[in-house]
């Protein structure tokens, strides 16, 4: 199939525009997407803060779990947002895009662009509370965090689209939850992957989300004084066969994961009628 560049970006713009307008017009959805992650943070973070020994997680539990909560909010938004393509088909308006001169990759790109923008907006709201937790988001932390969040959203959004394209009935839309659960809970969002039983550690290290989660945490906490220094960062770094994954390697895993999933989603979508 011959596809020009214009067919990619027109599809991307049209779909991203639609999804963002649609999101912004649902006031309840906007409000809950901003409030829910903060609620989680307050109840889990503060609730467990006194219970968990700081030496086990490298910082106070609240600080430890804060980047994890950001990653969780992001993955929920991106997964469900991507899988929304199932409902686009169900309600019929996907057909109009399929009959327009736009590429399949463009349509998927538009969905992922929209979920990325929405999740960044959500993270921005969560970053407002950073000073209260004692996390400093300044200087190079901002662009590095931004890069991570985008990579993370694209990867998880592509996974969402892939699931949304494969599912055929509203009943199997439950699949999204089934996939989200292990992906989020075995990614080091809530506990350090190095200090758990071996079987869980192995599962966590197979989970590609573990790496960007560790990366987001390392970036976000790296300038947090006074109790976090390089030495204290170590307990939540991820080691693969004894090799310590640095910020760049973690970003690379996220990027690779994203490319593979985006290709899989596009391929799967293009084969369908």
């Amino acid at each position, binding site marked *: 199939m011959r596809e020009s560049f*214009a067919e990619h970006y027109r599809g991307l713009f049209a779909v991203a525009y639609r999804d963002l307008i649609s999101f912004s017009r649902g006031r309840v959805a906007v409000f809950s997407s901003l409030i829910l992650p903060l609620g989680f943070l307050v109840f889990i973070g503060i609730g467990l803060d006194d219970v968990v020994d700081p030496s086990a997680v490298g910082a106070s539990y609240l600080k430890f779990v804060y980047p994890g909560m950001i990653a969780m909010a992001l993955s929920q938004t991106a997964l469900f947002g991507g899988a929304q393509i199932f409902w686009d088909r169900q309600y019929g308006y996907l057909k*109009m895009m399929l009959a327009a001169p736009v590429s399949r990759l463009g349509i998927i790109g538009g969905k992922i662009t929209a979920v990325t923008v929405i999740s960044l907006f959500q993270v921005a709201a969560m970053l407002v509370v950073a000073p209260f937790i004692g996390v400093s988001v300044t200087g190079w932390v901002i662009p590095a965090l931004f890069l991570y969040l985008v990579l993370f959203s694209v990867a998880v959004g592509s996974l969402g689209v892939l699931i949304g394209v494969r599912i055929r009935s509203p009943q199997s839309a439950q699949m999204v939850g089934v996939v989200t659960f292990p992906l989020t809970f075995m990614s080091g969002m809530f506990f350090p992957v190095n200090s758990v039983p071996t079987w869980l550690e192995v599962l966590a290290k197979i989970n590609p989300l573990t790496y960007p989660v560790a990366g987001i945490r390392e970036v976000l906490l790296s300038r947090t004084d006074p109790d976090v220094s390089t030495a204290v960062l170590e307990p939540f770094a991820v080691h693969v066969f004894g090799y310590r994954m640095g910020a760049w390697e973690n970003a690379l895993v996220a990027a690779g994961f994203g490319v593979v999933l985006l290709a899989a989603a596009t391929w799967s979508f293009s084969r369908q009628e």
Partner: protein
Amino acid sequence: MATIQAGGLRKSFGRIEAVKDVSFSVDKGELFGFLGPNGAGKTTTIGMLTTLLRPTGGRATVAGNDVVRDPAAVRRSIGLVLQESTYDQDLTAMHMLRIQGIAFGLSAREIRTRSEELLSLLDLWDRRNDRLREYSGGMARRAELARGLVHKPEVLFLDEPTLGLDPQSRRTMWDYIDGLRRTDGVTIFLTTHYMEEADNCGRLGIINDGRIVALDTPDRLKSQLGGDVVTIVSPQPTQVAAEVMERFGVATQTVEGIVTANVQDAAGFLPELLRGLTTPVDSVSVNRPTLEDVFVSLTDRNFGKAQNDLDGKRS
């Protein structure tokens, strides 16, 4: 060269053959009606012509482009109003046209002028910023028509566009569509269950069980059926049909308990029928053949019946 050309089109879904053999051509500026009972393959055929479905066999070109080899070129030249609703209820008509305009590569200025033009003509301009949720069925359908026309398509596919609309809305839509065809030479491919709409078409293709069974102008289809149509209403339709066959050697069709027979000369046949028939009869009437009769004789199905089925499904 014909604007739409289909040759031996086939489409199977697994073991089900939805379209078995469809060939026809539609000229530029023609209003072509595509009729058939539900499940005969109309929507599947439209799906193939609009590149939404890949044909299993045969080939088709739309506006000079092959639907399989160059789907993007086909998509650029077509507008689409589908049977099912295809809009997001939380958006407005303006959003809908803008999204479509972006997808077709129109500039912001073109989108603005086209939207104003179309929405004004279709009586929606005052409501352009209301959510589609707040529109009546007729308004939503007109908004979908406007969306199908933003990019000035050469060919317009209308799959039951006026289904369930009040006569007023149907009139507004048809006046506009007919104008497009006359002034801009837009080719229109229509499926409908409304007799008047079918009667207005330049030519009709009738599809039954995945095959084209008739292809001609409405007038010629009616005269091919020939003679008169005798309609008999009886409490025992099966017996009436059997008796008419037995005594007079005339074949009948029974749809919904109403028996119709196609005869050469009703004036001579009627007295004979009334004298000879022993089964009780409520009424007998004679008409010139209508498209309804053509449809019934070709598909053994009733035009209006199909309509009722669909209305039932929608509500």
